[in-house]
């Protein structure tokens, strides 16, 4: 059954904000969060006093060990001290692993639709000061089921994806070289994103193919760069949105991945992941009452490049095992028929755990995406009315569908 919102209560994006995303930043999380939050609120034509709900996905599993601040993300109690709020009525901070950054807009949408709040801020931080190794595996003891993998020297960023990717390559006859199609396009899109860490530096095919290996068949460019940056969106209800400058992106469906075939602490099989991914897609489409052919704008999680192929297949944009051929510039470029991750995704913008896709979905639907604004096909009118946004990796993801009107 498609989601039914109360009359006038369809949740919609009305503002967005982003800081520069940089490799390292030695300032405080607070200053960055303040900047992004105020930018989003101002963009919505609102003031701090209008905001009465805050929704944050704050997965606690992510954090470098550094300087007394163990978190890359910013939680709600911290957020309360960053802006001089006066009218907060409700907030939720979710630690759900089966979420990703889509959890924020999902929570906000449900609260808005239920009338719990009227204007909601959704925000996600990446905090990455210099001199810190991201996600250092420390210690000499591996407890619980993590011992079933860590004792084999497994567990550094991307390795869980690399082992699935290799199965994909062998099973479907794909080649590592084909992934350049996605990665180079993400970096190309990032050139039009003024906040992206890769803005100003377009990598080449040779750069990609010869880049430093991390977990072969994955190299450094298959992994998003941990960055310091904050992105935020403001959402409200349809009845209130008519008074804002550029509402767009009415939430029409949402889903979270079922984890029924996930085995804690060990790597799931490609086949199990595909089954879970497919279930999320089916539930998402049913909740929105649309199908793959209705989707104009595509945002899928690319924290690790192989996920892009698998999400494109799960959401039905191409057949299983064929995304490696489909996901090339002729299809996915901004000028192509299936624009994908138009702000550069995680790989082009930098790692804010999928929030870039949420932020950019809002931008495109609101018509505020600047040089990236779709449609871009010269002389050919094309609808760009329905967007899908998925965040989160294999076996741990959430998604929403929204419409321009």
């Amino acid at each position, binding site marked *: 059954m498609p989601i039914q919102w109360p009359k006038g209560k369809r949740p919609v994006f009305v503002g967005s904000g982003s*800081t*520069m*995303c*940089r*490799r*390292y930043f030695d*300032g405080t999380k607070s200053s*960055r969060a303040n*900047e992004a939050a105020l930018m989003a609120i101002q963009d919505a034509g609102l003031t701090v006093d209008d905001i009465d709900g805050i929704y944050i996905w704050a997965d606690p599993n992510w954090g470098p060990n550094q300087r007394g601040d163990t978190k890359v993300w910013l939680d709600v109690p911290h957020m309360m001290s960053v802006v001089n709020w006066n009218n907060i009525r409700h907030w939720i901070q979710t630690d759900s692993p089966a979420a990703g950054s889509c959890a924020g807009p999902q929570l906000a949408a449900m609260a808005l639709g239920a009338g719990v709040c009227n204007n909601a801020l959704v925000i996600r931080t990446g905090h990455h000061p210099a001199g810190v190794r991201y996600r*250092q*595996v*420390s210690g*000499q*003891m*591996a*407890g*619980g*089921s993590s*011992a*079933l*993998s*860590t*004792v*084999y*020297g*497994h*567990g*550094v960023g991307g*390795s869980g994806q690399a*082992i699935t*990717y*290799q*199965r994909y390559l*062998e099973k479907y006859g794909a080649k590592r070289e084909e992934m350049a199609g996605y990665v180079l396009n993400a970096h190309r899109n990032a050139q039009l994103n*003024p906040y*992206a860490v*890769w*803005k*100003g530096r377009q990598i080449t095919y040779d*750069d990609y*193919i*010869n*880049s*430093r*290996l*991390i*977990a*072969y*068949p994955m*190299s*450094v*460019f298959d992994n998003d*760069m941990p960055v310091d940056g904050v992105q935020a969106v403001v959402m409200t209800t349809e009845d209130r949105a008519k008074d804002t400058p550029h509402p767009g992106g009415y939430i029409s469906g949402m889903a979270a991945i079922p984890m029924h075939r996930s*085995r*804690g*602490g*060990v*790597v799931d*099989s*490609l086949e199990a992941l595909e089954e879970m991914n497919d279930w999320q897609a089916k539930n998402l489409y049913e909740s929105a009452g649309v199908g793959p052919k209705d989707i104009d704008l595509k945002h899928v999680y690319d924290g690790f490049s192989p996920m892009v192929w698998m999400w494109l297949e799960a959401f039905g944009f191409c057949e299983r095992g064929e995304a490696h051929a489909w996901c090339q510039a002729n299809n996915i470029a901004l000028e192509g028929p299936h624009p994908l991750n138009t702000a550069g995704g995680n790989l082009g913008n930098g790692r804010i755990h999928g929030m870039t896709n949420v932020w950019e979905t809002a931008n495109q639907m609101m018509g505020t995406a600047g040089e990236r604004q779709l449609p871009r096909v010269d002389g050919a009118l094309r609808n760009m009315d329905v967007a899908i946004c998925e965040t989160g990796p294999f076996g741990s993801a959430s998604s929403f569908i929204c419409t321009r009107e």
Partner: protein
Amino acid sequence: MTSQDPGPTVGPLGTHAGVVGGVAAPLVGDVDKLMHTTMAPYGITPVPSAELKPYWDGAKEGKLVIQRCQGCKSYNHPPVFVCNYCGDRDAELKFEQVSGRATLYTHYICYDTSVAGFEEKVPYAVILVELEEQADLLLMSNILNFEYDALGSGLKMGLPLEVVFDKVNDDISIPQFQPRSN
């Protein structure tokens, strides 16, 4: 930070033939041949949880034991509270020795790790094996006594493997896989 920000600072691009931790991995021409007879010394060792104690106790004795539902006879790994296959709360879950025969399911070659004891071993293969007892019954491993190259050539899906136990000390042995002897 404002729009006048001087711009991002990024590290140098990889130039060629990824060099990681002093280990060169040429992508053209000769690729290093790799073989391990053991992965010891292990810098990181398992702390058996209550659920996994039978598994590690079995390994210490040179046996690969996997939790099996006595109702539907399915294997569950890692161990579960209720069988993931039949869901029968009344079915007994018991650890049973398995054949140790498996096939290679997938792999990757690790070039960059911060897992204690493995920094000096890169590059090395991490593999998943599928035990012959049941589809989708996967175990992680390295691969011992098998020559492969630094880009994984030779590691093909379906390669027949068998378990071998890599002794860490009198209390701990790590299940590893090697090509089948017969």
